[in-house]
């Protein structure tokens, strides 16, 4: 994980030096633990990478919700094809979380769908990032868990990442929050923030809504069951997050000394832990995809890529698919290339140069899949996931380019940038999301097209352990 990331200036060597003073006779393992501790408490790692995945996942989900707007009633509405009654029976069994089952009303559904879109947009822009990440997660879980037989691999990635993002400090750069922090003169000159009416109001309203839902005994807010972790229900988790947000505001304003340092370090620890989980998750995706493929005879005989090109559901451009599938050699190169890249990737994260080459190949492959297999949202989600491994230099360069393009397009924005460093304003972040998706294309060559990932296989079964056979294209 240490191959990239971290702003050098964040990594203070103080603790490391302190540690060395008294570890003369320590074993190497104690020294390693000491160094690791110093590093994970020194500050949030990978600010640009976490920002780019925040923008990537929020944008993917937002585009998806916009695309499905005309179909939203059929997909998620109270009387959609998978009716709310049916959803309730399934959720009653598996304990998955969804606020949509709170009411049969059309109004409630429209409100939740609208809030899911708004929270995605605001998370993408980094406005009240901490709060929006929680609302984003609630929106993702509520819609996906309500209609569980609709998703594919893309939905599955967003589902997981929406939960992990809540624990990351993903708004440190490329966010409206960061811009506001830069612009607001510190009230006391020591980093104490000024009044924050909007924040307090937002926090109070959300607390009120949660309290109301809890008092009404609505579905999914148990204290110790059916939550994100064993013995932690969503009720406990959401109240915990609410209290933590409140405490963070309070100590910054009224207790800027040690309490603030302690909370700050705790948040850094949570961020770094979640970042590790996100990176391992991406590696697990590729490892699973690659290692299971090696066992299949179609991947061994070099024809695997031929078949998806001839599936009705995954060949929106038959002419293009036929062209690609017409050469046995090309099909074999893509087939073998896909397996090699997927199996190799998790091991290359420790070598910056090889990792970056594979990253370019994977991003290009996903972009081809978007068109060739007709899976744009799956591909966008995977590109966003890949982006957590992009090098900081590249991301900063990209941010500067995006800001420059924005200034050319929006002359009025120039003033904003000059105060905004790498890329401050709203429009920069918005276009950043688009640039994120296109970044691979801009970056380099290496033509490794199509192949797989088009996880038709994917999508969760029924969020129940007996989902058996739910994933066909798998076998």
């Amino acid at each position, binding site marked *: 994980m240490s191959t990239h990331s971290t702003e050098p200036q964040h990594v203070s060597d103080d603790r490391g030096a302190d540690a060395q003073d008294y570890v003369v006779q320590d074993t190497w393992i104690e020294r390693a633990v000491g160094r690791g501790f110093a590093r994970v*408490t020194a500050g949030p790692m990978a600010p640009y990478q976490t920002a780019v995945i925040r923008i990537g996942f929020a944008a993917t989900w937002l585009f998806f919700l916009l*695309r*499905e707007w005309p179909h939203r009633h*059929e*997909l998620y509405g*109270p009387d*959609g*094809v*998978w*009716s709310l009654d049916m959803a309730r029976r399934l959720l009653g*069994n*598996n304990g*998955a979380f969804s606020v949509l089952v709170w009411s049969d009303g059309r109004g409630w559904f429209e409100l939740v769908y609208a809030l899911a879109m708004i929270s995605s947009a605001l998370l993408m822009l980094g406005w009240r990032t901490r709060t929006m990440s929680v609302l984003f997660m609630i929106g993702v879980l509520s819609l996906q868990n309500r209609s569980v*037989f609709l998703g*594919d691999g893309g939905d*599955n990635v967003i589902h*997981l990442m929406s939960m992990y993002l809540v624990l990351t400090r993903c708004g440190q750069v490329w966010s409206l929050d960061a811009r506001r922090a830069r612009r607001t003169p510190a009230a006391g000159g020591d980093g104490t923030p000024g009044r924050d009416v909007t924040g307090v109001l937002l926090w109070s309203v959300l607390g009120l809504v949660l309290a109301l839902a809890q008092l009404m005994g609505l579905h999914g807010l148990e204290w110790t069951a059916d939550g*994100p972790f064993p013995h932690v229900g969503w009720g406990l988790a959401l109240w915990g997050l609410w209290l933590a947000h409140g405490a963070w505001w309070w100590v910054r304003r009224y207790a800027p000394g040690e309490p603030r340092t302690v909370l700050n370090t*705790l948040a850094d620890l949570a961020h*770094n*832990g*979640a970042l*590790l*989980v996100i990176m*391992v998750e991406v590696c*697990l995706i590729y490892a*699973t*995809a690659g290692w*299971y*493929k090696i*066992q*299949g005879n*179609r*991947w061994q005989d070099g024809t695997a890529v031929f*078949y*998806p090109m001839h*599936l*009705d*559901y995954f060949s*929106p451009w*038959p002419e293009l698919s036929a062209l690609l*599938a017409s050469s046995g050699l090309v*099909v074999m190169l893509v087939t073998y290339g896909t397996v090699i890249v997927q199996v190799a990737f998790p091991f290359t994260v420790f070598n910056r140069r090889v990792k970056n080459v594979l990253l370019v190949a994977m991003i290009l492959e996903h972009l081809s899949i978007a068109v060739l297999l*007709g899976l*744009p949202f799956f591909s966008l989600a995977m590109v966003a996931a890949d982006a957590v491994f992009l090098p900081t230099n590249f991301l900063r360069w990209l941010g500067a380019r995006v800001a420059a393009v924005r200034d050319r397009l929006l002359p009025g924005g120039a003033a904003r940038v000059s105060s905004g460093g790498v890329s401050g304003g709203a429009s920069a972040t918005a276009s950043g999301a688009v640039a994120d998706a296109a970044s691979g294309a801009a970056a380099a060559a290496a033509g490794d097209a199509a192949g*797989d*990932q*088009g*996880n*038709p*296989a994917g999508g969760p*079964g029924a*969020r*129940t352990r007996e*989902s*058996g*056979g739910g*994933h*066909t294209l*798998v076998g």
Partner: protein
Amino acid sequence: MATAAGGIAIAALVHIAMMFLHVAPSNTVTKAHGEAVSDYVYPEYEQNWKLFAPNPLQQNISVQVRAEIRPGDGGSARRTGWTDLTALDGRAIHHNLFPSHTQQNELRRAWESFVGSHDAQNRPNGVRGELTERYLRRIAMGRLGAEWTAHGGTVDRMEFRSVTTPVGPPPWSSEKISDKPVYRVLPWWPVTVDDVPEGASNQ
């Protein structure tokens, strides 16, 4: 602070271990502690990344449906011809840069979950089996209800079948496979008011 760091490190490592065991093949640890892994993973961390593995799907499955319409005037019931719902999806996806989940996933995954929750005699395994039957009927009514009843009457029953056609081997391959389609015909199901989704009617 060291305690907090240790706690968070342990939580992260436990989480990673659970995710690993969930996606790994059945093994010594999951055979002994599969229940604990499942308790941790379900419902919110379920995942499947066997993307086109171990082999890509090598067949097209067409889901087709026909109905029996009872006329309003009490005459004898009339049977519609088969409609290929999958072909309709295919047409909607053709030259489409942004296929909707309604076109690409809805029917495809409904059929998958039907197959996964029924035995070879098309009998449902419990609640999920019954729910997926209803899901299929609602999908069909949503797409064809209006057309079926355009000349009056109500949909009384409907029958599904799937036609599985293998994708032939590549032209450069000497492999020979049977290209005969395989049919799976489900029993006639009665249609009730519960089978009519929003936007459809059965009049």
